[in-house]
């Protein structure tokens, strides 16, 4: 009996014989030429490992990594190290949420369905929009799906994307759009690092997409986007950050048509980048063209409130090649985790997370500028993340390597001399002060830039 199989081979043989079947004939239907005859594959262990052996092997691998809770890290660029409240793991670890599947049978899935309904409600409240789906793979695929939605709605085949979008997201959009035979035009940022004044004109655009806060952390004014999109009969799309929405105007508040993004900052662990959880919300008029599962409220035969998967005529299992997307599932468990994060924090807690992150980023940026070693890349207000340029040249790769020796994971080097640094509410003043002193010392006294 191997691994987790609960019935022994002897019992299996006996069961099969009781209904006139034989164990050794189970796979007779497979043609001989393609049957595996020699199992000596080198990539696989011959015998299964015990639980203790698995723990030993995996722990060994995990310990070969350097991690952000033991190092002082300044990485962001799409994934942020916010604090995960203890409650979340306990709740999403419950097997009722963890091991169930897409709630096809509403009567035994009211937990998942209500959790999705609450997620949709929170997303609408944060983004200020009317309809949210049950989630999508990640922020990048959500951006691609948002623009495909714009193309479906407007029946146009070209979109415009600001270069302020995370490059990983832009790459994903390009991949999706190339496959779909649709065009993506990319607009460079202005000299202040925003999309203002960079929008194109023309009535052949299905949608205009900007990110706010953008890749350089700068908070965009979405009103210009909305105006320009309306003038060109295109949909306005914003890839946004849910935590920042505790402080800033929401997309819905200024009339944006579609909001999308990554909900990982809501207490989802970094996990080397995945799994992630994308969100997608839109105005009412786009409801029946949305991709992905959607939960709705209804009543049962006795008039009690009930939740179901609804508007399924959009979906692949009904519409096949005419579906709004091929997406089958959602990231329900992570959407539930994010929902619980919002329930635990409330508006006051979320605002505190946002304000502390912003305040600490502003503090760190000021301190680094004060060293005289860096200058601003863009002079615009930012949230949680900012870009700095080395004043006297040199290689940030060398600096980052040296920082590692001091147990610091530096910012992301966007080029030889441009550094993208992110901090969250988790970062202490002391850590930032030490970091600034270290950086200054390495550059001034140890000349690590090599410039």
């Amino acid at each position, binding site marked *: 009996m*191997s691994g987790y*199989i609960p019935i022994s081979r002897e019992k299996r043989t006996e069961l099969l014989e009781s209904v*006139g079947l034989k164990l050794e004939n189970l*796979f007779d239907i497979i043609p001989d030429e393609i049957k595996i005859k020699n199992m000596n594959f080198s*990539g696989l262990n011959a015998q*299964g490992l015990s639980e203790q052996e698995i*723990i030993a092997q*995996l722990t060994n*691998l*995990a310990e*070969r*990594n*350097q*991690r*952000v809770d033991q190092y002082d*890290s300044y*990485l962001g660029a*799409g994934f942020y190290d916010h604090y995960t409240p203890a409650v979340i793991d306990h709740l999403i670890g419950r097997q*009722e949420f963890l*091991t*169930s*599947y897409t709630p096809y*049978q509403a009567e035994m899935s*009211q937990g998942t369905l*209500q959790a999705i309904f609450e997620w*949709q*409600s929170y997303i609408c409240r944060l983004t200020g929009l*009317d309809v949210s789906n049950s989630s999508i793979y990640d922020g990048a695929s959500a951006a691609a799906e948002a623009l495909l939605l714009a193309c479906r709605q407007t029946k146009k085949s070209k979109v415009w994307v600001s270069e302020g979008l*995370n490059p990983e*997201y832009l790459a994903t959009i390009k991949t999706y759009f190339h496959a*779909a035979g649709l065009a993506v035009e990319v607009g460079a940022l202005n000299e202040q690092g925003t999309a203002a004044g960079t929008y194109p004109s023309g009535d052949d655009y299905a949608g205009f997409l900007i990110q706010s806060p953008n890749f350089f952390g700068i908070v965009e004014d979405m*009103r210009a986007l909305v105006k320009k999109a309306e003038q060109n009969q295109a949909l306005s799309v914003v890839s946004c950050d849910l935590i920042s929405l505790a402080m800033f*105007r929401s997309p819905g*508040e200024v009339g944006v048509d579609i909001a999308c993004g*990554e909900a990982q900052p809501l207490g989802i662990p970094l*996990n*080397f*980048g*995945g*799994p*992630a959880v994308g969100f997608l919300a839109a105005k009412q008029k786009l409801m029946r063209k949305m991709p992905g599962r*959607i939960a*709705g409220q*209804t009543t*049962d035969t006795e008039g*009690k409130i009930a939740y179901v998967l609804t508007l399924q005529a959009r979906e692949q299992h*009904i519409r*096949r*090649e005419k579906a709004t997307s091929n*997406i089958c599932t959602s990231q*329900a*468990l992570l959407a539930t985790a994010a929902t619980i994060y*919002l329930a635990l924090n409330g*508006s*006051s*807690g*979320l605002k505190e997370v946002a*304000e*502390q992150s912003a305040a600490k980023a502003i503090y760190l940026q000021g301190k680094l500028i004060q060293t005289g070693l860096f200058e601003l890349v863009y002079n615009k207000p930012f949230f949680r993340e900012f870009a700095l340029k080395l004043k006297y040249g040199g290689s940030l790769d060398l600096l980052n390597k040296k920082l590692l020796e001091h147990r610091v994971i530096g910012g992301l080097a966007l080029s030889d001399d441009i550094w993208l640094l992110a901090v969250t*509410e988790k970062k202490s003043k002391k850590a930032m002060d030490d970091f600034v002193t270290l950086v200054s010392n390495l550059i001034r006294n140890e000349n690590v830039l090599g410039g």
Partner: protein
Amino acid sequence: MKYQTNLIFDLPETGDNANRILRKCDVIKPNFAEFYGEDLLRQEDLDIPNLSEIQVLRHYTNMSSKNFGVENGPYPLGSCTMKYNPKVNENMANLPGFRNTHPLQPVETVQGNLTLLYNLEQQLNDILGMDYFTFQPSAGAHGELTGIMMIKAYHEANGDFARKVMLIPDSAHGTNPASAAMAEFEIREIKSNTDGLIDVADLKQKIDDKVAGIMLTNPNTLGLFEKDVQEITGLVHAAGGLCYYDGANANAILMQTRPGDMGFDVVHLNVHKTFGTPHGGGGPGAGPVGIKKILEPFLPKPVIKKTDNSNRAKFILDYDRPQSIGKVRAFTGSFSVCVKTYAYILAYGRQGLAEVSEAAVANARYLLERVRNSYHVPYNEPAMHEFVITAAWQKEKYGVITTDIAKRLIDYGYHPPTVYFPLIVPEAMMVEPTDTETLEGLEGLADAFNAIAEEAVENPELLKNAPHDKPITRPDETKAARNPILKA
């Protein structure tokens, strides 16, 4: 038992909780209105209730009790492979050394992660008979799209722009045609024959030089093995097309046969099905895609590579891939799901995986024989890991439909099978007990199916009103779609 029905937004608020979870801010908060300007700042109050920890815990704990999970009882949802999700794998995925790594860390600081992914790629290559795997796709359908994009890129690289047709059997999962359509392919449907297998004569008629490829599930969605698979892949290859294997049913063939040996060029796996990672109420799963060498240039970026530089970074991420399709999501994939997959495969090894498929098929065969006299069995070919039965007899004689039987199973404490799929079988019930079903689970399911068939004769109303003791009775789905209430 009385079930709680309120929403989180209905609970009475308990006041400001800004510093219940977070320590007090240790830098001075600037005047944000001055720093950002009023125009950027939120003008409306954020309508999100402030609650206490115990309120939140009770709310979601009670909510969870309205769900049914694999640890509650048998969950024979066909094509979804609802097997046991090993607990230790959850612990492993949550090891701080994995959990607290950022996707953009320098490669020399994440050698443990990259080693794991590299080893997992070798494991999957061996299990599926492929040459390379990418871990970027986040789900099965996402894997399909990724694989189809690579097929498209392959033909484009050959200057073969006229190959616009994807062949797909009429029994296929809905995601197959939907994924192909997202890559601009025109769908040409292949008929199933009276045995429930691909009609090879129909396939021959529909193959021409416009064909880019075929998408196939084997065993197919009827749970039947396509024994002509080599002829099928041979025909498609001879016409210049490529062959895509939908791995949703891979649990049936583990270490018995391999898609790579059947002639497939691209494979996706649903690790949440075959390798026991949790389904999470719909996700996160992962849909790694395996390919043969000819498609290697088109893999999504980055690709994990082993180097000779053993002093620091033994494994690197290679972004220099000019022919790559690009990216299908940010970063390298659903890493922690891959950790669980790796732990699962280690627990079995190659001998054990052969027993997984053996147990999966034996359980399905046994259960089918136990219920064969109670329900119409549309096909006579031997079932693999799942089987399809129908309510045709019950519908004709007693007006009882598949939905009624499914809902009555809930009363017996079981999750219903997949219903009304595949679409080519009226009143279909697709039953997949999986390799981890227990003896009492199998016997109980068989007894319940048979008892319900008797109830359909004696008391059809009992079925039509089922389920009887759940938090809700049958919901009004028409009302939900006509007057959508999608948020509170």
